[in-house]
Protein backbone atom coordinates (compact mmCIF):
# COMPACT_ATOMS: atom_id res chain seq x y z
CA UNK A 1 0.00 0.00 0.00
CA UNK A 2 1.23 3.51 -0.81
CA UNK A 3 1.66 5.64 2.32
CA UNK A 4 2.27 9.35 1.86
CA UNK A 5 3.38 11.40 4.85
CA UNK A 6 3.26 15.17 4.61
CA UNK A 7 5.27 16.93 7.30
CA UNK A 8 4.91 20.62 8.03
CA UNK A 9 6.88 21.16 11.25
CA UNK A 10 10.56 22.01 11.71
CA UNK A 11 12.89 19.52 13.36
CA UNK A 12 13.32 20.72 16.92
CA UNK A 13 10.39 22.99 17.83
CA UNK A 14 7.77 20.29 18.32
CA UNK A 15 7.91 16.59 19.21
CA UNK A 16 5.55 15.70 16.37
CA UNK A 17 8.35 16.10 13.81
CA UNK A 18 10.37 13.25 15.28
CA UNK A 19 7.45 11.06 16.35
CA UNK A 20 5.73 11.30 12.96
CA UNK A 21 9.00 10.38 11.26
CA UNK A 22 9.15 7.31 13.50
CA UNK A 23 5.67 6.43 12.27
CA UNK A 24 6.88 6.66 8.67
CA UNK A 25 9.82 4.37 9.53
CA UNK A 26 7.40 1.88 11.11
CA UNK A 27 5.30 1.91 7.91
CA UNK A 28 8.39 1.12 5.86
CA UNK A 29 9.44 -1.58 8.34
CA UNK A 30 6.06 -3.21 7.69
CA UNK A 31 6.85 -3.35 3.97
CA UNK A 32 4.66 -0.48 2.84
CA UNK A 33 5.66 1.86 0.03
CA UNK A 34 6.44 5.13 1.81
CA UNK A 35 6.85 8.63 0.36
CA UNK A 36 7.67 11.68 2.46
CA UNK A 37 7.02 15.32 1.63
CA UNK A 38 8.69 17.89 3.85
CA UNK A 39 6.44 20.88 3.19
CA UNK A 40 6.50 24.39 4.63
CA UNK A 41 8.70 24.64 7.77
CA UNK A 42 9.45 20.92 7.60
CA UNK A 43 11.96 21.75 4.85
CA UNK A 44 14.26 22.72 7.75
CA UNK A 45 14.39 19.01 8.70
CA UNK A 46 16.37 18.45 5.49
CA UNK A 47 19.03 21.12 6.07
CA UNK A 48 22.46 19.51 5.84
CA UNK A 49 24.17 21.78 8.34
CA UNK A 50 22.29 21.19 11.59
CA UNK A 51 23.61 21.73 15.09
CA UNK A 52 21.20 20.42 17.69
CA UNK A 53 23.59 20.78 20.63
CA UNK A 54 21.85 23.85 22.07
CA UNK A 55 18.43 22.23 21.85
CA UNK A 56 19.53 19.25 23.97
CA UNK A 57 17.80 17.00 21.47
CA UNK A 58 19.13 14.12 19.43
CA UNK A 59 20.35 15.27 15.99
CA UNK A 60 17.46 14.97 13.58
CA UNK A 61 19.75 14.33 10.64
CA UNK A 62 20.53 10.86 12.01
CA UNK A 63 17.00 9.71 11.16
CA UNK A 64 16.88 11.62 7.88
CA UNK A 65 20.08 9.95 6.74
CA UNK A 66 18.81 6.54 7.87
CA UNK A 67 15.71 6.75 5.62
CA UNK A 68 17.33 4.89 2.68
CA UNK A 69 18.19 2.03 5.07
CA UNK A 70 14.44 1.62 5.55
CA UNK A 71 13.99 1.64 1.76
CA UNK A 72 12.46 5.09 1.88
CA UNK A 73 13.83 6.73 -1.25
CA UNK A 74 10.96 9.01 -2.14
CA UNK A 75 11.93 12.02 -0.03
CA UNK A 76 10.67 15.34 -1.30
CA UNK A 77 10.43 19.03 -0.57
CA UNK A 78 8.45 21.58 -2.54
CA UNK A 79 10.36 23.71 -5.04
CA UNK A 80 8.23 26.66 -3.97
CA UNK A 81 9.28 26.25 -0.30
CA UNK A 82 12.92 26.06 -1.35
CA UNK A 83 12.67 29.63 -2.61
CA UNK A 84 10.29 30.86 0.13
CA UNK A 85 12.65 29.72 2.88
CA UNK A 86 15.76 30.59 0.87
CA UNK A 87 17.08 27.04 1.11
CA UNK A 88 18.59 26.12 -2.26
CA UNK A 89 18.92 22.40 -3.14
CA UNK A 90 22.64 22.51 -2.28
CA UNK A 91 21.74 23.34 1.36
CA UNK A 92 19.54 20.25 1.66
CA UNK A 93 20.41 16.58 2.03
CA UNK A 94 21.14 15.08 -1.40
CA UNK A 95 18.59 12.27 -1.01
CA UNK A 96 15.74 14.84 -1.07
CA UNK A 97 14.26 15.87 -4.40
CA UNK A 98 12.24 18.93 -5.38
CA UNK A 99 8.58 18.61 -6.33
CA UNK A 100 6.55 21.06 -8.38
CA UNK A 101 2.99 21.79 -7.28
CA UNK A 102 1.72 19.57 -10.11
CA UNK A 103 3.99 16.70 -9.10
CA UNK A 104 2.87 17.06 -5.47
CA UNK A 105 -0.72 16.91 -6.58
CA UNK A 106 -0.19 13.75 -8.63
CA UNK A 107 1.76 12.16 -5.75
CA UNK A 108 -1.27 12.75 -3.52
CA UNK A 109 -3.62 11.30 -6.14
CA UNK A 110 -1.57 8.11 -6.38
CA UNK A 111 -1.35 7.53 -2.59
CA UNK A 112 -3.62 5.07 -0.77
CA UNK A 113 -3.09 6.66 2.64
CA UNK A 114 -2.18 10.28 3.26
CA UNK A 115 -1.31 11.56 6.72
CA UNK A 116 -0.04 15.01 7.56
CA UNK A 117 1.80 16.07 10.67
Amino acid at each position, binding site marked *: *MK*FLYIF*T*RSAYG*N*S*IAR*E*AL*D*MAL*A*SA*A*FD*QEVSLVFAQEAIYQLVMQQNSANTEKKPHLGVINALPLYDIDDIYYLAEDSSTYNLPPAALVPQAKALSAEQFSSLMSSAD*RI*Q*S*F
Partner: protein
Amino acid sequence: MSLSFALLVSGQPCTDQASLSALRFCKAALDSGHSVYRVFFFNDGVHCANRFITPPQDEISVPKQWQALQQEFAIDLVVCVSSALRRGIVDAKEAERYELGGHNMADGFTIGGLGQWVDACIQADRVVRFGSNTQ
Protein backbone atom coordinates in the same frame (compact mmCIF):
# COMPACT_ATOMS: atom_id res chain seq x y z
CA MET B 1 -22.41 1.07 2.71
CA SER B 2 -20.71 0.23 5.96
CA LEU B 3 -17.10 1.38 6.44
CA SER B 4 -14.39 0.58 8.94
CA PHE B 5 -12.40 3.45 10.40
CA ALA B 6 -8.92 3.81 11.85
CA LEU B 7 -8.70 6.89 14.07
CA LEU B 8 -5.50 8.58 15.16
CA VAL B 9 -5.78 10.88 18.19
CA SER B 10 -2.78 13.18 18.61
CA GLY B 11 -4.26 16.05 20.61
CA GLN B 12 -4.18 16.11 24.38
CA PRO B 13 -7.53 16.19 26.17
CA CYS B 14 -7.24 19.36 28.27
CA THR B 15 -6.04 21.90 25.71
CA ASP B 16 -7.13 20.50 22.39
CA GLN B 17 -10.67 19.90 21.15
CA ALA B 18 -9.33 17.06 19.00
CA SER B 19 -9.87 14.20 21.44
CA LEU B 20 -13.48 15.23 22.05
CA SER B 21 -14.07 15.52 18.32
CA ALA B 22 -12.58 12.04 17.93
CA LEU B 23 -14.95 10.72 20.60
CA ARG B 24 -17.97 12.27 18.92
CA PHE B 25 -16.86 11.00 15.51
CA CYS B 26 -16.36 7.53 16.94
CA LYS B 27 -19.83 7.50 18.54
CA ALA B 28 -21.47 8.83 15.38
CA ALA B 29 -19.73 6.23 13.21
CA LEU B 30 -20.73 3.36 15.51
CA ASP B 31 -24.30 4.64 15.87
CA SER B 32 -24.59 4.79 12.07
CA GLY B 33 -23.63 1.15 11.67
CA HIS B 34 -19.99 1.67 10.72
CA SER B 35 -17.17 0.01 12.60
CA VAL B 36 -14.01 1.33 14.22
CA TYR B 37 -11.08 -0.98 13.57
CA ARG B 38 -8.83 0.76 16.05
CA VAL B 39 -8.27 4.07 17.83
CA PHE B 40 -4.58 4.83 18.17
CA PHE B 41 -3.39 7.44 20.67
CA PHE B 42 -0.17 9.08 19.51
CA ASN B 43 2.04 12.01 20.52
CA ASP B 44 0.09 14.20 23.03
CA GLY B 45 -3.01 12.09 22.40
CA VAL B 46 -1.68 9.51 24.88
CA HIS B 47 -2.83 11.78 27.73
CA CYS B 48 -6.38 10.64 26.90
CA ALA B 49 -5.50 7.38 28.67
CA ASN B 50 -4.48 9.03 31.95
CA ARG B 51 -6.94 7.84 34.60
CA PHE B 52 -5.66 10.48 37.03
CA ILE B 53 -7.25 13.24 34.94
CA THR B 54 -9.76 14.81 37.31
CA PRO B 55 -11.73 17.68 35.80
CA PRO B 56 -14.25 19.68 37.87
CA GLN B 57 -17.53 17.79 38.32
CA ASP B 58 -19.41 19.78 35.69
CA GLU B 59 -16.80 19.09 33.00
CA ILE B 60 -16.32 16.05 30.79
CA SER B 61 -13.65 13.47 31.61
CA VAL B 62 -12.21 12.38 28.28
CA PRO B 63 -10.61 9.16 29.61
CA LYS B 64 -13.91 8.08 31.24
CA GLN B 65 -15.81 8.75 27.99
CA TRP B 66 -13.39 6.61 25.98
CA GLN B 67 -13.69 3.89 28.63
CA ALA B 68 -17.48 3.97 28.43
CA LEU B 69 -17.36 3.72 24.64
CA GLN B 70 -14.86 0.88 24.86
CA GLN B 71 -17.13 -1.02 27.24
CA GLU B 72 -20.19 -0.52 25.09
CA PHE B 73 -18.67 -1.36 21.70
CA ALA B 74 -15.50 -3.30 22.61
CA ILE B 75 -13.39 -1.00 20.43
CA ASP B 76 -9.63 -1.39 20.35
CA LEU B 77 -8.01 1.59 22.13
CA VAL B 78 -4.24 1.41 21.66
CA VAL B 79 -1.78 3.83 23.23
CA CYS B 80 1.54 4.29 21.40
CA VAL B 81 4.24 2.96 23.72
CA SER B 82 7.01 5.36 22.75
CA SER B 83 4.75 8.43 22.92
CA ALA B 84 3.33 7.20 26.24
CA LEU B 85 6.59 6.49 28.05
CA ARG B 86 7.98 9.90 27.08
CA ARG B 87 4.89 11.52 28.62
CA GLY B 88 4.61 9.40 31.73
CA ILE B 89 1.60 7.32 30.75
CA VAL B 90 2.30 3.76 31.92
CA ASP B 91 0.39 0.57 32.60
CA ALA B 92 1.23 -1.86 35.39
CA LYS B 93 3.62 -3.86 33.21
CA GLU B 94 5.67 -0.85 32.05
CA ALA B 95 5.66 0.54 35.60
CA GLU B 96 7.21 -2.70 36.79
CA ARG B 97 9.74 -2.82 33.96
CA TYR B 98 10.97 0.73 34.61
CA GLU B 99 10.47 0.53 38.39
CA LEU B 100 8.23 3.59 38.43
CA GLY B 101 6.36 2.85 41.65
CA GLY B 102 2.92 3.52 40.17
CA HIS B 103 0.86 3.42 37.01
CA ASN B 104 -1.83 5.65 35.57
CA MET B 105 -3.19 4.08 32.40
CA ALA B 106 -6.95 3.70 32.49
CA ASP B 107 -8.59 0.27 32.06
CA GLY B 108 -9.88 -0.33 28.56
CA PHE B 109 -6.73 1.06 26.91
CA THR B 110 -3.80 -1.14 25.90
CA ILE B 111 -0.19 -0.21 25.19
CA GLY B 112 1.05 -1.05 21.71
CA GLY B 113 3.57 -0.15 19.04
CA LEU B 114 3.42 1.90 15.85
CA GLY B 115 3.07 -1.36 13.93
CA GLN B 116 -0.48 -1.57 15.25
CA TRP B 117 -1.24 1.80 13.70
CA VAL B 118 0.29 0.75 10.39
CA ASP B 119 -1.85 -2.39 10.53
CA ALA B 120 -4.94 -0.26 11.22
CA CYS B 121 -4.13 1.98 8.24
CA ILE B 122 -3.90 -1.09 6.00
CA GLN B 123 -7.02 -2.85 7.32
CA ALA B 124 -9.45 0.05 7.68
CA ASP B 125 -11.37 1.60 4.80
CA ARG B 126 -10.75 5.14 6.03
CA VAL B 127 -8.02 6.77 8.14
CA VAL B 128 -8.89 9.92 10.10
CA ARG B 129 -6.57 11.93 12.31
CA PHE B 130 -7.71 14.14 15.19
CA GLY B 131 -5.13 16.60 16.46
CA SER B 132 -4.18 20.14 15.62
CA ASN B 133 -0.88 20.91 13.98
CA THR B 134 -0.44 24.08 15.94
CA GLN B 135 0.30 22.91 19.46
